[in-house]
């Protein structure tokens, strides 16, 4: 029981000898650095990414190391950043564009959904867009208005782009490297609340965590809990609380990639437990949870022993910080969700 992060990846355990303890945001920097060293076509661009090293310091030190031809402070224009990155990507570069907060991606939305996502389709594969767009997201750090949005569903709904959400330092580096190497556009969402909440062993060299593969963070028998990003931690806590109090044991799945979903891991777990709680901080209606329920209905309906529960944000704009804790799924709310499913 407990965290078995490396169980899936045995060769890695050997390599972890050469590792350092990093926070999630440091792991992002390390991932960028690793890929910039490896591949001269990787460039980093965005608002304040150069001299300032990014508002969260995710690109700290890169300008000094790689120069201003590869680490580029752009004008304040998300459509500009993403649109030109598309052009750079289809003409030989591997841009990693930073959007300061996910809530500020909207001016670039058209470029993502109308272009990045469909250039491969529109040109029958003649042109492709190997672009990564990184954006911090999520509530829980008392940020000002609009900084806390969690709108992965907009992108999840758009064929042609992958959506990746790491929840810990190890995954962040491995997933970021996999995203940069991916031939298609990837939205890489970084959970702000987890940026500096823990340090973990992160291998110093290059490694990847495959896109489309979830992480079975903890194994149990009675119920499947599915979460991603900032919600993995409270979900684990709720699982542990319920285990202690009620002896329910849970499979906890950290999706890591939302698009494409790891159907196999989800279905296998549900077939074993027959009970599911989905946890996401994004608004409930039309959230990714809705699709997960549909997927489970398609693949494992007859294994279900209770209706699937969702513990989510409410269908309101993310409130300012005085009510942010009330908005966010808490350990208590998740535990409550588990109880409802178990007691059905």
């Amino acid at each position, binding site marked *: 029981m407990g965290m078995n992060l490396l169980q899936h990846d045995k060769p890695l355990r050997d390599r972890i000898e050469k590792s350092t303890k990093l926070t999630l945001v440091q792991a992002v920097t390390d991932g960028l650095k690793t890929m910039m060293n490896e591949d001269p076509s990787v460039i980093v661009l965005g608002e304040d990414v150069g001299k300032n090293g990014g508002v969260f310091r995710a690109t700290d030190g890169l300008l000094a190391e790689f120069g201003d031809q590869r680490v580029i402070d752009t004008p304040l224009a998300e459509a500009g950043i993403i649109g030109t990155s598309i052009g750079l990507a289809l003409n030989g570069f591997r841009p990693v564009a930073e959007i300061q907060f996910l809530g*500020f991606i909207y001016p670039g939305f058209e470029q993502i959904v109308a272009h990045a996502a469909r250039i491969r389709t529109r040109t029958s594969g003649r042109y492709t867009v190997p672009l990564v767009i990184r954006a911090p997201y999520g509530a829980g750090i008392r940020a000002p208005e609009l900084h806390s949005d969690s709108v992965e569903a907009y992108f999840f709904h758009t064929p042609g782009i992958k959506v990746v959400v790491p929840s810990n330092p190890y995954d962040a580096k491995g997933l970021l490297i996999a995203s940069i190497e991916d031939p298609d556009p990837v939205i890489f969402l970084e959970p702000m609340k987890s940026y500096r909440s823990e340090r973990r062993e992160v291998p110093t060299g290059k490694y990847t965590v495959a896109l489309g593969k979830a992480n079975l963070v903890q194994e149990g028998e009675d119920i499947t809990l599915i979460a991603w990003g900032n919600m993995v931690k409270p979900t684990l806590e709720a699982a542990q609380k319920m285990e202690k109090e009620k002896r329910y044991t849970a499979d906890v799945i950290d999706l890591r990639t939302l698009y494409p979903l790891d159907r196999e891991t989800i279905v296998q777990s549900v077939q074993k437990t027959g009970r599911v709680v989905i946890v996401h901080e994004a608004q409930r209606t039309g959230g990714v949870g809705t699709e997960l329920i549909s997927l489970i209905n398609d693949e494992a309906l007859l294994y279900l022993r209770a209706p699937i529960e969702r513990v989510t944000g409410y269908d309101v704009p993310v409130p300012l910080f005085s009510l942010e804790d009330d908005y966010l799924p808490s350990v208590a709310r998740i535990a409550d969700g588990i109880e409802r499913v178990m007691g059905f």
Partner: protein
Amino acid sequence: MEGFITQQLSLEAKRQEENFPIYQLVTPEGELTDDGERIYNAELVRRMYKHVLRARLFDRKAVNLQRQGRIGTYAPFEGQEAAQIGSAMALDEKDWIFPTYRDHAATLTFGHSMVHVLLYWAGRFEGCIPPQGKHIFPPAVPIATQILHAVGAAWAEKMKGTAQVALAYFGDGATSEGDFHEGLNFASVFDVPVIFFCQNNGYAISVPVERQMRSKTIAQKALAYDMAGVRVDGNDCLAVYHATKMAAQRARDEQEPTLIEAVTWRYGAHTTADDPTKYRDQKQSEERRKYDPLLRLEKLLRGQGDWDDTWAESLHQTLQQEIEQAVREIESYPKADVTHMFDHVFAVPTWNIREQRQYCQSLLK
């Protein structure tokens, strides 16, 4: 094909900077220019001084409150007061303003309450509610987006046949966003009575203006939209006031938009979460105090023989009291109520919101 035809092809860029000199009525030493002499009015300038001092004391208090954890992240404006206040004072009571997160000197001058501004930074949407009858829009957090709202609101006033205008505040960084260009274009195509008021404070977070754009001035961007563009000394409250007054008059009388670039400086951090030493020399920032807008007004009043020490002292005291009172008020404000997040999403809550509201309330019991 009609009009002027030339056979000379030239790709030489025209530098337009020289066409947009900085308009000034009061020198940094507090002396009036010739035009300034004409406009000077002791009572008006004393009111300016009061507003600038009020905003400055408020801003410093807010930064302290943030440091003590009594409010959240805050965007200070010290150094930019004259630009905000000169422009806000030039408007009529019924006009509209569309501020950003940094424009509290403008909103306070235009009639917003300190309590509300502080409530906003204390993480509450109630802080966005303007006093009854005042058209003060909530601070725009996404950059440049409010520029279009101002155009629309002013356009509506024009179609309704009123004499009201709208003014949008934004920074130099905002001029890189598409919304800025779309706003100016709409205003010029539809002859909208709107004022685009840019505070060029030299930086958009860490990016200096010369890295933000190649054009030497922001004012010259008006040329592309065939509208008036003016560049004023943003630390000269009187010049800002006069330029905005003229722009507002033109908007009212002739339905003409204007782009105003107020050249100024913010001494401190971008927000309380930012560390400016990473990207700029703070000594350079301190040197700008020579051009300080508050100091300039004081010098002006002294030079004109209109300064009175006891007046200034008692003003200081009254303002401090006003601020302390506002702080006491927000700190004794009833705790934020969870129902608030559900009650204002739609005019009539939909079933999902009704149920979620109930569930959320039940958790509190």
